[in-house]
């Protein structure tokens, strides 16, 4: 596993030198989606709390970054932890009432949140901050001066890619630590047997709210990075369809799986591009078909399929089929 990860990182580092400008940008978006999916997966995959509204946290992170950069002159790299902190708090606060909502009802409430987000962002009384319907335009960050001093020449796209890559690697490592440790086990226990977990002494309320907070933080950071990459935030970029896109990402990529975030991100970034050739409406039809198809045929997602394949190739029998995939 470790060798694969190192190879992956090496390949990732080499990528921007091989790809042309626009493709580097797309690769950056894949990284950003992967972070967002990681967030959603922590909440829905590992902890079983269904969120159809994670697009709202992405929007919060994006707007936080945009407002800080445009209205407060904060440098782009500082907006990442700040956006993360804001979303962590908001997410945790969301998690508190969410404690009382189970499965379907939580899905319903988060769905309502997602649908209401654009109107809130367009509201007149917030316009001073959000820029209303027109949104906010931000400047693309240039590679820092100290980089030129070391002799490495990167253009803005490449620099942004490496920045996002660094953030992604840090966040993946943190997530991995969480998931394989006590926290991860507690989250899964709560998902699978809520009452038994509580009976065993796990503070389910705390863990569930924390899960919401951390998950929101991840997706918010992704949103901030996304805003910087796209250089623009506007209410209509954050409709309920964004939340649905993230859902597709974790179902196709693989629930309760870290590598699934990567597969899912690749899927949601590139499939619309391919489907677009057919018709403007086709990407969503494809998403819908894949969503339903994966639920029927591949409920463990791409990550599950990969794991099954590698296990078969290695000739090892799965001892506990329900074990969660790293």
């Amino acid at each position, binding site marked *: 596993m470790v060798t694969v990860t190192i190879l992956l990182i090496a390949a990732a580092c080499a990528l921007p030198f091989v790809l042309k400008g626009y493709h580097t940008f797309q690769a950056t978006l894949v990284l950003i989606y992967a972070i967002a999916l990681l967030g959603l997966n922590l909440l829905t995959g590992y902890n079983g709390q269904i969120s159809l509204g994670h697009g709202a946290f992405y929007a919060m992170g994006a707007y936080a970054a945009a407002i800080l950069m445009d209205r407060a002159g904060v440098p782009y790299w500082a907006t990442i932890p700040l956006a993360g902190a804001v979303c962590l708090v908001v997410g945790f606060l969301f998690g508190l009432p969410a404690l009382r909502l189970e499965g379907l*009802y939580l899905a*319903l409430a988060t769905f*309502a949140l997602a649908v*209401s987000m654009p109107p809130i962002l367009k509201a007149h009384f917030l316009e001073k901050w959000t820029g209303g319907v027109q949104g906010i335009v931000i400047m693309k960050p240039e590679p820092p001066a100290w980089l030129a001093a070391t002799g490495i020449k990167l253009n803005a796209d490449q620099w942004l890619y490496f920045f996002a890559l660094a953030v992604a690697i840090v966040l993946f490592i943190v997530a991995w630590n969480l998931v394989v440790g006590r926290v991860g086990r507690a989250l899964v226990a709560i998902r699978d047997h809520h009452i038994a977990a509580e009976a065993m002494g796990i503070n389910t309320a705390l863990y569930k709210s924390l899960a919401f907070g951390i998950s929101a933080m991840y997706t918010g950071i992704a949103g901030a990075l996304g805003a910087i990459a796209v250089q623009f935030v506007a209410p209509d970029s954050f409709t309920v369809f964004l939340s649905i896109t993230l859902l597709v990402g974790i179902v196709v990529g693989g629930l309760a799986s870290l590598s699934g975030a990567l597969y899912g991100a690749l899927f949601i970034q590139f499939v619309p591009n391919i489907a677009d050739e057919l018709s403007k409406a086709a990407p*969503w039809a494809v*998403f819908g078909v894949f969503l339903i198809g994966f*639920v029927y045929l591949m409920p463990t997602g791409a990550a599950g399929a990969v794991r099954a394949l590698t296990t078969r190739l290695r000739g090892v029998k799965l001892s506990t089929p329900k074990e969660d995939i790293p």
Partner: protein
Amino acid sequence: MEAVLLQFLAGLATGSIYASLALALVMIYQATHLVNFAQGEMAMFATYIAWALINAGMPYWAAFLLTVAFAFVFGVLIERVVIRPVENAPVLAVVAVFIGLLVILNSIAGWIFTYTIKSFPSPFPAALGIRYMSPHQVGALLVTLAVLALLYVFFRFTPLGLAMRAAAQNPVSSRLVGIRVGWMLALGWGLAAAVGAIAGMMVAPIVYLDPNMMAGILLYAFAAALLGGIDSPGGAVVGGLLVGVLENLLGAFVIGNELKLVVALVLIVGVLLVRPSGFFGSVHVSRV
């Protein structure tokens, strides 16, 4: 004062549309304990079919009836083909399937009919209008009430309606008296789809026909269904009217039109937190 009355009556008219959609949601919830996230898109799709028929020259009420029939069949098919395999699956799987359905219907409508906004005719003659309500508002209210009355009669006084109620409440006992529970479920979906189609055709003249027209309305319908009690048909109707009136009054006098949708959000979250069974629903205690 007159302004308030105007908004109140307008609220009743739109509220009756929310009530119809909420009723469709409740019908499916009663039978399956599932919330049909795709209800709005199914209604939207049916409305487009009506539009196509009318555009091809068919008289309004003929198109109306044909669309209702089509929606019914479509609902039955969706239940048998798409929903049945996941009826007992974990919640996330079911939600994913519903969302998938939502998205497919939305995109197919956009693909076939394009995203250009279209106008949809109102069949109600000018004579129907009264002092404070437009002909369409009166008409929509009347149609909704007629549909509700028909449904009430069907469920309370016909053997099939009784069988459907029984199948929803107690599938095991229903089998013991020979009811084919699976088909009752499918019929329920068909009826819900038909009711949704009527709601769509009543709302389209107001909000104009476009693939995304039902998203906000679905939210209001959710709020209405929850407010009234997710397993209470009567509650859905009361909830719908209430939500309609509230939305209009708040939107006109308190928070402005653009934030009206947030009312739905607040209602949904509020009801779920404070009184999940709504006004008329039954409280569920689950044994562990």
